[in-house]
């Protein structure tokens, strides 16, 4: 028998192998009590840096499209892009979570190894080509997330968040599988591209597509936190440890989008399709934008607010499915980079507020800007960027998504863009509320127990700079690059 395919596959998955090996190594090393936590942390960082470096080399040289492991995963620029992005997200998360987790009585090694595992799952999510791989990796990411949400197991909120997450996640993925079974029934294949090709030759009623699509959407949308599958999101975000929340709000969410793109590309394809599946996305994205933004108005807790903001942003991101062209996918990739930057940055500020100043809601942050203006300014930058105000990166990402969506101008896209623009205006209220509380209100004294760690301040400053720098520097290469990575 010919085993070349295994060799090729393994050669092209060096980053993944490094992460797997590294995870096992970290777990093994943790047995030795004399090794310090810092050492384990540095090991994990080194693994991610190594994996990121290899990916970077690959992504620069690679242009083709390969299918690895007998059709299980696609190896193309799209998957390489997300591999890079997820490794970067995991690295940043790991970096800024260190000051928080180093004081935990237990769960330190678990955090590191689960974060690495979850990254692996996300990487595979973005490159999955079969229903089996999609479900498996979705569950992979989900199960590691459930555990990570409950890492503070003596904290009632944390463990409650974990339970809610697992109930919701298990239910959603079951529903998704049920939908997938119908597609399998019709086509006899679990490879999305084969399924798509077969479907194109069949004349199936709309009702079939409709029911299957919505059943399958349950699993994807729960990961992407899109209305109506978003309700776990605020509770889990609030309960989970804050570094974990930061990770949830970026990594798994974007991975869900990556997988959804691959799925839609395979099953429905770009251009014409026998079924107007875009209608579903109009409804869910409009609902997400409306419910996410309107509900966020009432929030006081910072993490809950960020959860609803994340739901709203997922709505904006889901807009690209209305057109689903190469451009719009490219603009989504761009959006996800910018979104990760600003969201991670915002969460670093929340971590600092929580850890050093004991602030977790808007009211108690009143007048904070005079205590730590540097942090307040960074936070303002992230918030303005999340709104999408012009000089900041968030503006460009939103603009590109809107532009790519509005290209075929019709009533539906116009309607969706209108809602998007209106909700953007609404979102200004609650983001500015935070800034307003910090700068314009008089507040109490904020005492600080220790100096804010450099490992928190530095990433925050760098991310804030990145958010601003995009206005000044030549950033076209990034978009061109994203476009070239589009499917």
């Amino acid at each position, binding site marked *: 028998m010919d085993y070349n395919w295994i060799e090729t596959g393994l050669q092209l998955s060096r980053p993944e192998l490094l992460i797997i090996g590294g995870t096992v190594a970290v777990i093994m090393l943790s047995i030795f009590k004399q090794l310090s936590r810092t050492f384990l942390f540095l090991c994990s960082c080194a693994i991610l840096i190594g994996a990121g470096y290899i990916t970077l080399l690959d992504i620069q040289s690679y242009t083709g499209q390969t299918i690895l492991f007998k059709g299980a995963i696609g190896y193309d620029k799209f998957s390489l892009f997300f591999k890079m992005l997820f490794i970067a997200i995991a690295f940043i998360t790991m970096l800024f979570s260190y000051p928080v987790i180093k004081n935990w009585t237990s769960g330190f090694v678990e955090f590191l190894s689960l974060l690495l595992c979850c990254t692996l799952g996300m990487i595979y999510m973005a490159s999955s080509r*079969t*229903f*089996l791989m999609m*479900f*498996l990796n979705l*569950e992979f990411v989900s*199960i590691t997330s*459930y*555990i990570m949400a*409950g890492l503070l*197991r*003596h904290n*009632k*909120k944390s*463990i*409650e*968040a*974990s*339970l*809610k997450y*697992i*109930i919701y996640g*298990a*239910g959603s993925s*079951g*529903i998704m*599988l*049920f939908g997938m*079974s*119908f597609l*399998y*029934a019709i086509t*006899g*294949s*679990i490879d999305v591209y084969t399924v798509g090709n077969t479907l194109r030759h069949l004349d199936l009623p709309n009702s079939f597509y409709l029911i299957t699509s919505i059943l399958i959407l349950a699993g994807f949308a729960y990961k992407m936190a899109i209305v109506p599958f978003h309700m776990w999101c*605020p*509770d*889990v975000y*609030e*309960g989970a440890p804050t570094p974990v929340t930061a990770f949830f709000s970026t990594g798994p969410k974007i991975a869900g989008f990556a997988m959804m793109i691959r799925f839609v590309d395979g099953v429905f394809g770009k251009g014409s399709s026998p079924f107007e599946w875009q209608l579903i996305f109009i409804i869910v994205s409009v609902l997400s934008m409306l419910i996410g933004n309107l509900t966020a108005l*009432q*929030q006081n807790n910072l993490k*809950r607010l960020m959860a609803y903001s994340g739901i709203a942003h997922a709505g904006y991101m889901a807009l690209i499915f209305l057109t689903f062209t190469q451009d719009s996918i490219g603009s989504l990739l761009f959006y996800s980079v910018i979104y990760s930057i600003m969201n991670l940055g915002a969460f670093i500020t929340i971590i600092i507020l929580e850890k050093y100043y004991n602030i977790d809601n808007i009211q108690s942050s009143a007048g904070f800007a005079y205590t730590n203006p540097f942090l307040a300014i960074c936070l303002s930058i992230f918030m303005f960027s999340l709104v999408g105000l012009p000089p900041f990166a968030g503006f460009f990402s939103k603009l590109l998504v809107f532009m790519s969506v509005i290209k075929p101008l019709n009533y539906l896209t116009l309607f969706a863009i209108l809602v998007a623009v209106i909700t953007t205006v609404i979102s200004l209220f609650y983001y500015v509320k935070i800034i307003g509380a910090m700068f314009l209100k008089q507040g109490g004294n904020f005492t600080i127990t220790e100096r804010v760690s450099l490992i928190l301040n530095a990433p925050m400053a760098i991310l804030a700079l990145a958010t601003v720098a995009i206005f000044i520097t030549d950033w076209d290469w990034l978009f061109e690059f994203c476009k070239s990575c589009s499917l």
Partner: protein
Amino acid sequence: MLWFTKYPVENLLILSSAVFCFGIYTIVTRKNAVSILMGVELVLNSVNLNFITFSQFVDNAGISGNMVAIFVIVLAAAEASVALAIILGIYQNFGRVDVDKLTSLRN
């Protein structure tokens, strides 16, 4: 060996749909977290029945449906182990596993 040939595939599908709905019903109505987990198992079993049926009826060349079913079983086991661990954590923290009472996270 004789195997059945005459059972319409619809019957299997209706059975799986029914079990699926019972599963959803269980998840939505049960108060006990362990029972909710059982509902999840029902859903996953109905999915498995679907996949195996289709695999045996449609997919002549391959056996992907069966493979999906095998992975679902293993994942269900994995998920169940984590879920039960979480439920034990809940029990240690709250003294009960009643989902309706777990509302410390809310607006």
